[in-house]
């Protein structure tokens, strides 16, 4: 298989398989999670008014008092990494074109140099967060294989995409094929790992807020 055949495979059958597994996994898990249900709470609600569920969705995006000082890398790094990664994925011209081809929606792109800079910032932030996870004994103790693995599958698409556009290490065609392949691996892993928080995050926050309010701890 030569470079172009490899690239064509990743753009063709590879993408087909990855998107297929992604859709399968996402629908499976969403239906499974949201149909689980909970036992009916027979106790009278202590606090029914207000929108604790909705408030919790936003409130948990802010660090609790004192936590920013205790764990700045988690909060600042987490914010930078998530927002800048979203900029690359949703505002890079080739990515918008892919989305347009898959779902028919498109919007204006940012200049490629800016996306290149964003990739560097994202990677630097991810490396700092990884170092923090290794350095802090508690974080390291709590980390499992899944944490290291999901960090890697998230990091690789950014790294290979940036290296492809900067013409580093391998010819562009090979690096572009590796970039697409790494993104496909991410798609396959996402529904079956903690990366699924992209889909469940706000639902679970809302649920927790709602339950807490029911028990008398409204937000």
């Amino acid at each position, binding site marked *: 298989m030569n470079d172009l055949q490899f690239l064509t495979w990743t753009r063709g059958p590879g*993408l087909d398989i990855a998107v*297929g597994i992604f859709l399968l996994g996402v629908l499976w898990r969403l239906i499974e999670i949201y149909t689980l249900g909970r036992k009916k709470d027979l106790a009278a609600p202590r606090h029914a008014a207000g929108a604790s569920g909705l408030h919790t969705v936003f409130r948990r995006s802010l660090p609790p008092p004192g936590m920013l000082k205790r764990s700045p890398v988690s909060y600042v790094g987490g914010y930078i990494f998530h927002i800048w990664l979203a900029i690359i994925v949703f505002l890079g011209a*080739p990515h918008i074109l892919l989305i347009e*081809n898959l779902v028919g929606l498109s919007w204006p792109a940012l200049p490629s140099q800016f996306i290149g800079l964003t990739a560097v910032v994202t990677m630097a932030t991810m490396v700092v967060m990884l170092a923090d996870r290794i350095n802090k004994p508690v974080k390291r103790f709590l980390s499992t294989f899944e944490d290291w693995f999901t960090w890697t599958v998230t990091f690789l698409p950014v790294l290979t995409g940036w290296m492809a556009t900067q013409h580093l290490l391998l010819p562009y065609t090979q690096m572009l094929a590796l970039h697409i392949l790494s993104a496909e691996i991410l798609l396959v892993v996402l529904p079956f790992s903690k990366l699924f928080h992209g889909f469940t995050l706000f639902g679970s926050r809302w649920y927790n807020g709602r339950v807490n309010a029911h028990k008398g701890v409204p937000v």
Partner: protein
Amino acid sequence: MQGPLIDTLARRGVTRRTFLKYCATLASMMALPPTAGRAMAEAMAAARRPSVIWLPFQECTGCTESITRSHSPTIEGMIFDMISLDYQETLMAAAGHQAEEARQNAMKDNAGKYLLIVDGSIPLGHDGAYSCIGGRSNVDMLKEAAAGAAAVIAVGSCASFGGIPKANPNPTGAVSVSDLVKDKPIVNIPGCPPIPVVMTGVLAHYLTFGSLPELDDKGRPKSFYGNTIHDRCYRRPFYDQGKFAKTFDDEGARQGWCLFELGCKGPVTHNACATVKWNGGTSWPVESGHGCLGCSEPDFWDGGSFYKALSAPADPLKFAAAAAVVGAGAGVAVSVANRVKKNTAKATHETTTLADLEK
């Protein structure tokens, strides 16, 4: 025509100054040091018509057309006249047995010294019967001619990589020159067709230095195939700014914006079109408003649609809808199983009383 090249050129009205300028340009295109232009001029001027055998196999003659009709009259064209082109079916006057005899004589008289140029792929299916010349299969002729050649130059994508004949499903079992010839230096000059100056550049390098130019991992001269079309494209700034033509006749297309979204394969194509251009530097595909097809890359014909962007899916998704249905089905099945488990647990639940605990 006998004698050194410079005499023949002079007879054709090419001055020494023009020839020197041509050699300097050629040397600079090939990224050779400034002194190489002069060395090239001296060596080429004195060159004594090396024997060249040109074998056309499974091809469309586009490569020959490209070189002979690039623009007229050209020094490239004239240099082609100056080499002793002992066998070239399209250009030679002889035909039939006479032509085959010329080939045999050239091979015998210049054994080990002649250059072998090949255009077209070589079909191996049915013992090579898909393409024969004078009753002999291409594969036979190639093996015989390559045995006595100093070097082999594969002209065009078909000879270099198999090209369109090798495209899926490859009905003739077509292969490239380098698939068959393993013991001779081979230069690949891919393109459909290749740029004429690349061809003369390689010949000039061979005549001057007695060796072939530096090649990349696909056997292509680095000086011409070292960069991608995208990297040297004059429309590149528009790509970087995110300005793309969406159709071939929209405002973006009229403004000369990047053709990436219209399927341009420039980012994955190594060739010199963007710098050398075509038709005597007049224009080239992207300048004329059409994206690059990637014709100088192996298997370009099977690289997905010419009109689909590189970041877009090469084919329509086949499994997505089925996968979504299976996923939803699996979700429903698992949730039903969970409910059954929960209900069974509820049904088999035994209430523990205080009396039980005191037992």
